[in-house]
């Protein structure tokens, strides 16, 4: 029995940009350049990397917000109990797909319609997907507000987003996402806008809900400390490619790729007596090596720890 929920193979997303409106030479930006990964049912995979490395583009391609350039994405359809390709989704299929795959956005100040009440915001997906009777929808809204800790729910139903705090807004975003009972949720830096003391409660809420409702997450962040807290496995991205992917503790204890080492060494440690050693790499050099070797392979060094091998001196990795 294959228990993968999502299988991504060689996903590519290129953007064409032209210097000016009349320019004929188009430049291609390789935002995502051939990445592969699986997400198992009930698992949280962290996607970690610097700004501009293609994390969000990957997420948008996965949930069909932007069409991918090439590659394949298969998802588990709970109705047919089979893996299906997102290329085969027709207009009806996309409803089923979207019901099972939801997204939580970074900024709770911009992702909620300011003119709608909390009730309307959470109700919208239920209306769109025509789930349940009117009365059942009302019950579902109250129930999900209770689940995400906005209690008593009747105090929140009639409020507008500006009347509640940032942490509460992010709880509303989560409620709106989970009211659909999805199997898979993409979280794009959902806690980076929140204060430290509130951040943990949102992270704990998401972890608990994952267990309770059997949801898998793709968790996008640039902070490895947050990823460690949230994720079972972590994939490290650099310039549109995944350079290393492993179980969380394995990746942090035994990083192999130089970029992973650099990323880990740049995380501040909340302990004044700890002296952090910086691991320096030449980013231009690394970028050159990676772009000159488009067909690099991921090799397994054991324990499902995959590393990209760029078969060039300087970044040679022994098998």
């Amino acid at each position, binding site marked *: 029995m294959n228990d993968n929920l999502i299988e991504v193979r060689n996903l590519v997303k290129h953007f064409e940009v032209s210097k000016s409106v009349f320019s004929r030479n188009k430049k291609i930006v390789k935002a995502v350049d051939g990445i592969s990964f699986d997400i198992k049912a009930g698992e949280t995979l962290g996607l970690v990397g*610097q*700004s501009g490395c293609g994390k969000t583009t990957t997420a948008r391609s996965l949930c069909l917000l932007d069409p991918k350039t090439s590659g394949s994405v298969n998802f588990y359809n709970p109705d047919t109990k089979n893996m299906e390709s997102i290329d085969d989704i027709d207009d009806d299929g996309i409803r089923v797909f979207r019901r099972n795959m939801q997204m939580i956005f970074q900024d709770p100040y911009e992702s909620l319609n300011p003119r709608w009440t909390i009730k309307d915001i959470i109700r919208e997906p239920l209306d769109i997907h025509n789930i349940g009777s009117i009365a059942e929808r009302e019950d579902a809204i109250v129930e999900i507000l209770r689940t995400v800790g906005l209690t008593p729910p009747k105090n929140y139903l009639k409020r507008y987003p500006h009347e509640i*705090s940032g*942490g509460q807004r992010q709880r509303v975003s989560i409620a709106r996402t989970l009211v659909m009972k999805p199997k898979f949720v993409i979280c794009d830096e959902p806690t980076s806008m929140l*204060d*430290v*003391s*509130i*951040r*943990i*409660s949102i*992270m*704990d809420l998401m972890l608990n809900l994952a267990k309770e409702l059997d949801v898998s997450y793709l968790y996008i962040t*640039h*902070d*490895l*400390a*947050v990823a*460690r*807290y949230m994720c079972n496995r972590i994939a490290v991205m650099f310039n549109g490619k995944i350079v290393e992917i492993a179980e969380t*503790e394995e990746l*942090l204890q035994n990083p192999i790729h130089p970029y992973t080492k*650099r*990323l*880990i*060494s*740049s*995380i*501040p*440690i*909340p*302990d*004044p*007596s*700890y002296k*952090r050693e*910086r691991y320096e790499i030449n980013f231009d050099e690394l970028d050159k090596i990676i772009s000159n070797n488009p067909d690099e392979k991921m090799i397994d060094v054991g324990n499902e720890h995959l590393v990209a091998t760029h078969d060039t001196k300087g970044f040679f990795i022994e098998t």
Partner: protein
Amino acid sequence: MSKILLEVKNLSMHYDTLEGNVEAVKNVSFNVNSGESFGLVGESGCGKTSVAMTLLQLQPENSIITEGSIKLDGKELVGLSENDLRKVRWDSISIVFQGAMNAWNPVIKIGEQIREAMREHYPQNSKQENINKINELFRMVGLDESISERFPHELSGGMKQRAVIALALSCDPKIIIADEPTTALDVVIQDQILNEIKKVQNLLGLSLIYISHDIAVIAEMTDKIAVMYAGSIVEMGPTKNVFTSPKHSYTRALLDSTPSIKGEKKKLRSLDGEPPSLIDKIDGCSFAPRCPDREISCNPTEHMSLIEIEPDHYVDVCSQGKI
């Protein structure tokens, strides 16, 4: 060496708004020695930036300093005229602002914007002298000299922030305030900027006031910290002492809610509730409604003040029973 450079005493400031007075800074006292790094940490809205702005007296017009004194090198800053303040700002005390992206005028070249500040403070210098100095500062913060001739939109976020640091250093200040200089940047760039700030600070023997909500960054950057909550300092002391034996429940809550990539993976503790609105006058302990250790022993209506519990380590008196 450990001469007191900046002495802030009983500083209180409020904003006069339509809804009432917002007491953003309440009875804040601290000293910064020369060459020392002092950290101000707390959640958003706790008054960190208000303290910074009050030190430079750059706060908005509706703010009023109700009490207290700010002494820089023995010279009182509260009550100085705008003209006298202009001499102090940038010359003795300068600031690296939060949003490097928005700190620059988009239509003027970077070098010209730095020279503008230098012309104001060193009218006697020739243009070439200023250019040489900017080149030297750029080298110090890891920028190429050619950046002077570029416009802000041509630089990346990290480069802009480096240039802001060069700007802050341009008039040889004794003390720099860094107000969340890395919040908009990703981890690798943050690491480079922090390293640059530390390097420059050691090289020039500057004092630094580092403001951040990120406990991990504060741990690395500072010798001494003050934890702020609802406009007041609730705990202050040498960074090492505060981290190893935090005395105030709020400090403990902050430390317990910070994830780390080193050491055992531990269950983090969240802090329920929201910080209080500063419009309502709070009698006694402002942290009491959220305090996880509240039942142990405290009187939330008691008047609060900082007491010294070990050399240089101060804590809000409420926590006395919980040590």
